[in-house]
């Protein structure tokens, strides 16, 4: 029956984009036989934002408040990729302290988004408390961002040339107290999720990502690491201060949703560990280098690809400059394209219709990544 869309044998269903189980503004067109899905097609086009085109019409500095909006839960990776690209093209040396502050920001962001998506995994199978708690813990991290950058969601903080402001007075203490608070309460969340019979029933052995698909499809992040891969940009091509931090890549080999949830859960511990390391090793010095006149700032012609490890895997920016006041072309490469189109369409075949959102969330699909310019 696989692949069948026969109207006499299968039932069509348009799932999303308004369905609460969908990970955002996307939909999946499905055909199923009984409870079993025979074919799935991912549809995008509900986010008419066209970021990549917008960026071509803005000054280099004006793009820096824009890029963070590409990803709502983890805005900083965009700022980081964009800043790295601009700095490399223009030959800007970022001060040491700024590099460490950036690493701190990236890990805080990863912590926040992993708390949300780990809890969210429980939410998709009806364990709403877990989802709420995950969001609550993330809110503690957002309080830190508010203190640091003045914004909770869009931080507009990592700028080309450094960061925008130094750490506020007493920030280390605030961070440590939030880490302690989250660390203390995480076991409660574990009891609702990882150590919950319902959670296990719905996730163990469900949503299998075969290890051979990793290279075939170019899977990255927790999706790949949940199937035994050790792929992590932080380790493979260290950027900012990651090369100076002591950590091991988190990996699980269950290949199912439970494994991916476990990877995220262990990533939370890793992020908290890294944040403590960063705070201890944070050097002094300036936090940014002065930039030229922002409205007359021309970047020398060239092209560059920069990448970082986002909570969803490798995340990259391809930036082309023609030497003018504005970028000639920017392409944003997010992992959701392969995860939510190629992989999801393959994984859903044969899956139970009740597991669709469960599988989708386990891939932490971010629809804007799929259709950014299209």
């Amino acid at each position: 029956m696989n692949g069948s869309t026969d109207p006499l044998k299968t039932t069509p269903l348009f799932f999303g984009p308004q369905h609460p189980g969908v990970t955002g503004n996307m939909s999946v067109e499905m055909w199923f036989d009984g409870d079993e899905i025979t074919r799935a097609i991912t549809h995008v086009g509900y986010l008419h934002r066209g970021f990549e085109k917008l960026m071509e019409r803005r000054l280099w500095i004006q793009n820096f408040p824009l890029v963070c909006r590409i990803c709502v839960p983890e805005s900083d990776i965009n700022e980081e990729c964009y800043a790295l690209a601009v700095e490399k093209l223009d030959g800007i040396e970022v001060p040491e302290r700024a590099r460490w502050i950036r690493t701190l920001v990236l890990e805080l962001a990863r912590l926040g988004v992993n708390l949300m998506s780990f809890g969210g995994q429980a939410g998709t199978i009806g364990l709403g408390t877990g989802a709420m708690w995950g969001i609550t813990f993330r809110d503690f991290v957002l309080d830190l961002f508010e203190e640091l950058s003045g914004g909770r969601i869009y931080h507009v903080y990592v700028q080309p040339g450094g960061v925008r402001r130094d750490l506020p007075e007493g920030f280390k203490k605030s961070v440590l107290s939030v880490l302690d608070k989250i660390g203390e309460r995480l076991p409660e969340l574990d009891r609702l999720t990882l150590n919950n019979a319902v959670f296990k029933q719905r996730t163990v052995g469900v949503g299998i990502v075969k290890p051979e698909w990793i290279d075939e499809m170019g899977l990255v992040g927790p999706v790949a690491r949940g199937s035994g891969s050790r792929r992590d940009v932080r380790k493979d091509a260290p950027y900012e201060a990651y090369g100076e931090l002591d950590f091991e890549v988190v990996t699980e080999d269950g290949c199912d949703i439970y494994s991916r949830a476990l990877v995220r859960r262990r990533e939370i511990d890793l992020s908290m560990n890294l944040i403590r390391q960063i705070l201890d090793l944070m050097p002094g010095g300036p936090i940014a280098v002065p930039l030229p006149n922002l409205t007359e700032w021309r970047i020398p012609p060239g092209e560059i690809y920069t990448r970082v490890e986002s909570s969803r895997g490798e995340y990259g920016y391809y930036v082309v400059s023609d030497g003018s006041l504005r970028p000639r072309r920017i392409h944003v490469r997010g992992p959701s394209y392969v995860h939510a189109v190629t992989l999801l369409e393959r994984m859903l075949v044969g899956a139970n219709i009740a597991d669709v959102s469960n599988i989708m969330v386990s891939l932490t699909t971010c629809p804007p990544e799929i259709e950014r310019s299209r």
Partner: protein
Amino acid sequence: MKFTDIVSPFLAWSRAAKKADTIPYPKKSNPGSDRYRGFHRNDLDKCIGCGRCEEICQNLAISMVEVKDSQPIKGDSGLRPSVDYGRCCWCALCVDVCSTGSLSLSNSYSWPTDNADACAFIPGSDEKAWDDSKKGYCQDNSILQWAGSPRVEMPVAEPDERIKSFEEVVRGYSPEQAAAEAGRCIQCGLCVTACPANMHIPEYLRAIANGDYSHAVKLFFDNNPLPEMCGKVCTRECESVCAMGYQGEAIAIRWLKRFACEWFESLSDVLAVDEKPLEPNGRRVAIVGTGPAGLSAAYYLTRMGFETHVFEKDGEGGGVAQSAIPEYRLPSGGYEKQMDVFRKAGVKFHYNAEVCCDDILKISDDYDAVFIAAGLQRSSEFTIPGVDLQGVEHAFYFLMNHPEDGSIEAGRRVLVVGGGNVAIDTARSCKRLGAEVVISYRRRIEDMPADDEEIQEAVEEGIDLRPQNIPIRIEETDSGLLYIYAEALMIDDPAGGRPKPVRKDDIEHGIEVDKVFLAIGQSSDLSFLPDEISDNLNIKWGRIQVDEHQYTGVKNIYAGGDITPGAGDVITAIADGMRAAKAIAESCRTE
């Protein structure tokens, strides 16, 4: 699956007995952090309406609008930002680039209103609850330097090197330095309002930044035919209002003008490319004086098709500006380059042609209009005992006699009385002639009318600046002169004027010198005007009063430059000449 997996979820109920994490709004609220990016605040008195916030806003949320009680003045557009919160994305770029630092964000993020139109308002003008709050995202320009940056330093000769000759102190920018400096301009255009001639400053700075120097020179000549001179000695009111000067250093507009002019061997060649004057219109205008005002009027009139005759009592043009400003500030090398422009434009020069009473009457009959730009010819008199002694001279005449050629003996010990540019020029010239120089000034250094840069360079060159010295008398001694003065205290003027110096005590101090130069201002010599004309002119303090078109009120007679009231600098004279040219053309057209 373990048994604990069935039990453990129920343990979550223990949370029900603990304090909730949620904030029970409105019983309790959650104020924004100290750095929160909330609604805008704007200090309207600090804001200069440069529009930098509007320029940088990527959402077009900010528009510059007129507000009540705010008028456009020099260096202030009178406009203030209005923010549309339907568009604002709270990125605070506007705050970080605000040239005066007037704009900031409060930590307020909640503002319920039932009026959708109220979501666009003018921070600071439309009163809001958060106007007085101190918290929120404020500018810190110390590291980012987005709101103001240091200027590209102009290479200058070292002080001990430069006092050895009259060679120009300023060495000039390289093309890279000029591009970097011109590229700092934020194109707000406030400088244009401050420049007496309203030069196209943002446009020519952009041309220089882009390496298009000939375009820059053409833009200069649109409203200033003496850019070579202005590039060296302009009083640069433009720089005093430069938006970049509030938190960084003003753009070196004067030096960039100098750079573009120096780049070309001949300015007339640059202009000739696509500039053609109008056809001759058969009208003739006489101009008295070849100072900046006269030359400016002559240039623009000629370009408008007038036959322009300029009368000069000396053998060369340029006026006091060219003759009295020392070589190390305004080298005579640029003189020919400038005069070449006027000659090629078709201005007819009559040198050694002093205009006296009878000539004026004849000229005013023969010509369609007369523009009087005779300047200030006399040094002001000073009335303390001893000014008639041998060795006491007027600084103005000293400078006019070209001290650089070494024909004048400056003396070993020189004292200059005064605090204007003439005083500083005299002191620095004497220093170059090998003298030990003291400047004695009645008020404080900050009250000196001389250019700050000149004062600083004088100090660097080892000139002894003595402020708050009231001159009493000059006595003759066996070895020279004894300058007697008293120390002064500054008393605030109740009328709001600048503080006045009064004697501190009865003690008299003396300085032994060889020469004393008096530099306390210049005055006009209007003796060349016949009674028929001067009786009808409105003359106050020795200056001919004119209207906004430089018209004297006497038929066909216009005046401008130092002989009329004004700032008394080159650029004001140039602007006077241009205004007079336009007015003469207009009156001839309507006749």
